[in-house]
């Protein structure tokens, strides 16, 4: 790891300013992704701006909306009674990320800012039609994840919270990569309060994507059988030693059906 200048601002504005002034700065949240990349020499930022000093952590549960502040660690989303009641699918998703060490350090802000194609949270953000709140604006979930490891965030923009509308019912089913336990495929199915249905898939492609054909079929008939025959195209899906695009495409349908059956 190379040397860097360490900052620990207490106000978002100071964090943004520190980033503007840095030659090649990086925000730090849980460090579960950033620190290993630095140790391996894959990233060597000039400045580290630790967002831990902002104290921006915690969950607010309202009647129609669950707000998760960006610095909230996965473990706290997983065990939060309010989240478990309002959006059990979200609590379960957070509880299935990594291992206890990772869940007690890794944050929702870091996870979505990083936009790993195999991360779990992007499926929740898109599948539940969440809004990402940043230091500068609000970005609809559908617009936030732009490409592999790339988001709509500007270099000096900080994620401050994610707002999840409370759905009628939802479930997330994950097929973990056998080795890393990231999502080889993960599917969030949600019926929102307005009756619309979302099917969001992570792990299978370069970034999270929706399956409109399944959404339409489920809006007509919210049952596993309604989508049993709907297949996503294998072309363009991820290919590695653990799964071919064809296998991933197959799993999308299997997991989506299981998610529909489990939705609550």
């Amino acid at each position, binding site marked *: *790891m190379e040397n860097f200048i360490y900052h620990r601002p207490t106000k978002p504005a100071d964090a943004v300013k520190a980033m503007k002034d840095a030659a090649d700065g990086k925000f730090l949240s849980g460090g579960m992704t950033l620190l290993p990349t630095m140790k391996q*020499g894959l990233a060597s930022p000039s400045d580290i701006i630790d967002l831990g000093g902002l104290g921006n952590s915690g969950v607010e549960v309202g009647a129609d909306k669950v707000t998760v502040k960006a610095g909230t660690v996965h473990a706290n989303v997983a065990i939060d009674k309010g989240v478990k009641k309002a959006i059990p699918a979200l609590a379960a998703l957070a509880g299935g990320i990594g291992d206890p060490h990772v869940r007690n350090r890794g944050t929702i802000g870091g996870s979505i800012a990083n936009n790993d194609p195999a991360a779990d949270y992007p499926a929740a953000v898109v599948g539940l039609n969440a809004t990402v709140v940043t230091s500068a604006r609000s970005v609809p979930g559908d617009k936030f994840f732009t490409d592999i490891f790339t988001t709509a965030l500007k270099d000096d923009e900080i994620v401050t919270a994610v707002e999840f509308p409370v759905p009628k019912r939802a479930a997330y089913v994950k*097929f973990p990569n*056998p*080795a*890393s336990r990231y999502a080889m495929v993960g599917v969030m199915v949600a019926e929102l309060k307005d009756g619309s249905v979302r099917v969001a898939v992570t792990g299978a492609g370069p970034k999270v994507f929706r399956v409109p054909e399944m959404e339409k079929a489920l809006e007509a008939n919210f049952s596993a059988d309604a989508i049993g025959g709907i297949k996503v195209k294998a072309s363009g899906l991820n290919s590695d*030693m*653990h*799964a*071919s695009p064809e*296998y991933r495409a*197959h*799993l999308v349908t*299997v997991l989506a059906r299981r998610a529909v059956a489990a939705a609550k």
Partner: protein
Amino acid sequence: MDTGIGARVKRKEDHRFITGKGQYTDDINLKDQTYAYFVRSPHAHATIKSIKEPEWAPEDGVVAVFTGEHVAEDKIGGLICGWMIHSKDGSPMKAGPHPILAQGKARYVGDHVAVVIAETKEQAKAAAARVDVTYGVLPHVVDVAKATKSKAQIHDVAPDNTVFEWSLGDKAATEAAFQRAHHVTKLDLVNNRLIPNAMEPRAAIGSYDSGSDHYTLYTTSQNPHVARLVISAFHGLAPEHKLRVIAPDVGGGFGSKIFIYAEEVVCVWASKRIGGRPIKWTAERTESFLADAHGRDHVTHAELAMDKDGHILGLKCHTLASMGAYLSTFASCVPTYLYATLLSGQYAIPAIYAEVDAIYTNTAPVDAYRGAGRPEATYLVERIVETAAREMKIDPAEFRRRNFVTTFPHQTPVIMTYDAGDYDASLKKALEISDYKGFPARKAAAAKQGKLRGIGFANYIEACGIAPSAAVGSLGAGVGLWESAEVRVNPVGTIEVLTGSHSHGQGHETTFAQLVSDRLGVDINSVAIVHGDTDKVQFGMGTYGSRSGAVGMSAISKALDKVEAKARKIAAHVMEAAEGDIEFKNGSFSVKGTDKKMAFGEVALAAYVAHKFPTSEIEPGLKETAFYDPSNFTFPAGCHICEVEIDSETGVTEIVSWTAVDDFGTVINPMIVEGQVHGGITQGIGQALTEGCVYDSESGQLLTGSYMDYCMPRATDVPSFKLGFTETKCPSNPLGMKGCGEAGAIAAPAAVMNAMTDALGVKDLAMPASPHTVWKTLQATKMAAE
């Protein structure tokens, strides 16, 4: 509390380990210590055209950079392979040079090209990245099945990359058996390459003292005396009395720490070159993946011949065994004498013929890994026996029973003489524990849930404690395979046992003490086990091949015999009785027919004060040494039954039941033995379901270079094991022990794959049988049906 043989004594060493008080090599820091970092080849095969250092600044902290040229300057010998194998045509195996720092060529990704020594580890690593090596990339081959026809010529001495073409058994008799066959079963098998994953990565500290012209090496070794012998005799670094090797606490080995590696030799050699400052190297996990010796990597075709009743008439096979890019310390004996000699399994097979070609590939060296050769043999035998039973429509348990060896000693056609066993007893017990009769009902119930349920057997046999020394010598071993022990009784009756075995997780500090407690009737806490230091223990062969019980403890037992004999003499003098009237029981010496009695500790004190016996006849003191050379291998055997359920939609396999009935002979500590079985089975399940080393054939790069892609089995991948034991004593050693360290890893892969092929209704399935592999198999079966 009983602390003798057979007691479930809690491990004495665990307090130290679980409170963080273990002393591993990386915990040790010497004065003025420097740090080494190795420059490793990024190419699978390349000439080294030049190695250039930049101008170092003082803040770079660089002490020295060494390359193969410096090694040559000091005439430091290369790494050796200690077991000579001859090809069928009588020619000796073709071992290419293996310098401790590459000379002229790098032969696999991760090959040790140069070393940077610096003030701190970070500085060494940063500087290593700045050493400028110019490579000339050469054609490479990583796949053992393609290596003999490849453009890559890895070692000049080995045309077609062939190290040897060896055979065992009677070819003509085997061909004749196949001529007579009613049915022949044919099977192609790949025994997947594995990367060992000891919790503690390899590490070394080399240090040279110019005052006494003496070297010290701390290293993560399973056999420090063998390391000293090799470094002294073959690398030519220093005579043995000028070199001390210490293997302190070692966090797991699984075979991978038997071998003498370049890094440790470099540290101890280079310490002198930098004026005697100690040099520490600790592998990063990535280096462990790249440069620890890997395991397995066989490609095999096998055939089994049966008469019309399913009696096996003959077995033949041809195996390609990858050696990697260099011959590691014991690489050559693994696919030969530790493999083909076990191809008779538990069965009376009249004729066997095995051909093994050992092949160089541009990959990390391959050597012994938990089971070493025996898992490969068991996998072959038990997969083909199960397949034959299915093809002949004979119940697989019944098929095995028909072919079991039932009389002992039994001479197989492949060297081994099985000395004792009862294979039917372990099968019978396993069938009961697993409720074999209830399987069809369980299968039907699973089918209702959309699950494919299958059952598979592995009736393994293995050979531990390889010996006697003269026999292994005649087969090509460069060493003898005996063990030594020294029992030192202190004046107050406490005891130190110095052993040539080395504990790196096995629990010797407990089990060896149990033997002493049992024999001398002393408290287990008054016994200390000393091991792992060539200055303390005179010589020893170390721990591998499940030999520490059968061989190591037998040596201790012999030394204890001598201690007891001398103590009897002393007790007789002190109690003024005839030696023949002395009885020794429960730690006390008594005179037959009287109430005269002395505790063991009192006799020890009498031995040291030496007031009451003629020292002209009996020397003072109580300390005895023994060297024990076994008269035969030991043959642990057993029956494992695995049941799986496969989710036909996702391809996910769950192991829903596991029965293991093992015959290890005498069991010293059932708790420790059960732990060994659990760990072994889990490792075998890893091979079957999750672990597979992948090199990219295009680039030669290791694709499974971290836990992100190399999948170790987890607690959630294994069921709660149902264990049972049968016992036939091993007749060749005084304790009747056979060994238990590798059995699980030997039995498990075949049991899992037999269960999965049963569930899927297929003959072939590759390991690791990941969900993706299973799904592809299901797709292919579906398409074939359509």
